[in-house]
């Protein structure tokens, strides 16, 4: 077991931990932003209440919709007045009547459905109930593109690192097997089972993995304090918290991957030797 192999495994695991953390943060960011994705549907002034309620019920039935709120003309005006009261630079001119339309505010549970859903509703514009449909497709699209690129890129880099780590373990164990080849030959000669020959090496592979995991996790947890402080300015806009539950999941995942890679690499290595 060499220092170099432990070091390589550590690097791989650090990358894995970084990827997990970033992915978790991004997921949290996406879900926060997703919950803010809304479609506003302005209603025709001549629409009957029964028609509006029927439309509301129809929208609510769609699985992509989490909540539909009916905002009447009066409520819309009251909101505008509330905003005006809070902001000194905002003066509401006194006008006769209420120019604001009533609307349905649609919150979506799945942001990816926003575009399709808005299109469907827009098809009903002019039919007597729906006056206009407002959504903000760019925001949603951009967000989803970023997530996709990051997850695909992350998985690709991780796969590459995993391959490198596996390769290093295979080679480390190959050296260990080579050093004990006489012993293995005699073991096989006197009738030891393949498993009896294999398990010490698999254990050694797992030990290399576990050592790498301990070093990687030490680095991650030592760095987590300063990094969090530095990132706080950036993250404060989003209610993301990576608490002790996540720390535990992270440690378990890193250790699990380390043991798997160690055992897997060793198994490959010993199998190659036994097949000779």
């Amino acid at each position: 077991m060499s220092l170099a192999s432990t070091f390589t495994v550590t690097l791989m695991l650090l990358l894995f931990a970084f990827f997990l953390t970033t992915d978790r943060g991004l997921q949290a960011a996406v879900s926060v932003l997703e919950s803010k994705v809304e479609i506003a549907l302005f209603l025709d002034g001549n629409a009957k209440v029964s028609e509006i309620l029927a439309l509301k019920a129809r929208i609510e039935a769609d699985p992509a919709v989490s909540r539909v709120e009916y905002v009447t003309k009066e409520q819309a005006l009251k909101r505008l007045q509330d905003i005006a009261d809070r902001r000194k630079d905002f003066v509401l001119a006194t006008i006769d009547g209420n120019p604001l339309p009533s609307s349905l505010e649609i919150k979506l549970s799945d942001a990816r459905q926003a575009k399709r859903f808005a299109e469907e509703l827009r098809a009903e514009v002019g039919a007597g109930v729906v006056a206009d449909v407002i959504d903000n497709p760019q925001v949603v699209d951009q967000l989803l593109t970023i997530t996709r690129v990051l997850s695909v890129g992350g998985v690709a880099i991780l796969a590459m690192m995993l391959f490198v780590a596996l390769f290093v373990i295979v080679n480390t164990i190959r050296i260990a097997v080579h050093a004990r080849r006489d012993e293995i030959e005699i073991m096989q000669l006197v009738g030891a089972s393949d498993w009896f020959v294999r398990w010490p090496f698999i254990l050694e592979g797992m030990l290399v993995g576990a050592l790498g995991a301990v070093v990687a996790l030490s680095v991650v947890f030592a760095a987590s304090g300063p990094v969090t402080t530095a990132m706080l300015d950036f993250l404060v806009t989003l209610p993301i918290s990576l608490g002790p539950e996540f720390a535990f999941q992270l440690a378990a995942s890193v250790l699990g991957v380390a043991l798997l890679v160690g055992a897997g690499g060793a198994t490959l290595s010993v199998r190659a030797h036994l097949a000779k």
Partner: protein
Amino acid sequence: MIALDDVSKRYPNGTFALRDVDLRVDSGDFIFLVGASGAGKSTVIRLLIREELATTGRVVVDGEDVGRMPRSRVGRLRRKVGVVFQDFKLLPRKTVAENVAFALIVTGHEGRLVREETERALSLVGLTARRDHFPSQLSGGEQQRTAIARALVNRPRILIADEPTGNLDPVTSWEIIKLLTRVNDLGTTLVMATHNAEIVNALRRRVVHLDHGMVVRDEREGLYAA
């Protein structure tokens, strides 16, 4: 105990190591495999412990078809077939007793059984006094006796010796042969490949002569050369 039925071994380059070999060895037999280097003696031995598989034909050891046996059973086969080599194959960093006990430990035995069986095998080969020596501190004959003890410690039905006296002087060779005949007298089937004409001629046991992969002579109470 051992049966080779119409066995051929052909290597990928087309050369035959064995050609249509038929051989039957009964329980308790002592046979010499003789023939020039490359005649196929070692191939027969490798087939018996399934280090190699026959290209055609059937190899049966103690009632089991060796060629059809799954890999997971090979260990059990080898515990029934002890093997001794010309170069002893001892582990240099283990003592005599540890080398012998190794065969028991790696086949899943432990504790008192390992100690008792190791001592039994050591006393059989007369090395009890040397039990804590390392191979480098032993004579060639003592090293071979250690290897024989290791081959016998799992109480095999068959003992195969591949040129066991090849590295030993005549006097020591006789010691080893005496030991092997005693092992055979105790009921273990013995197959010995050898170039040592003097020993074959003196013992007058069954001789199976291989030449270019074929059995050219199979005699009871035979001589090294016809």
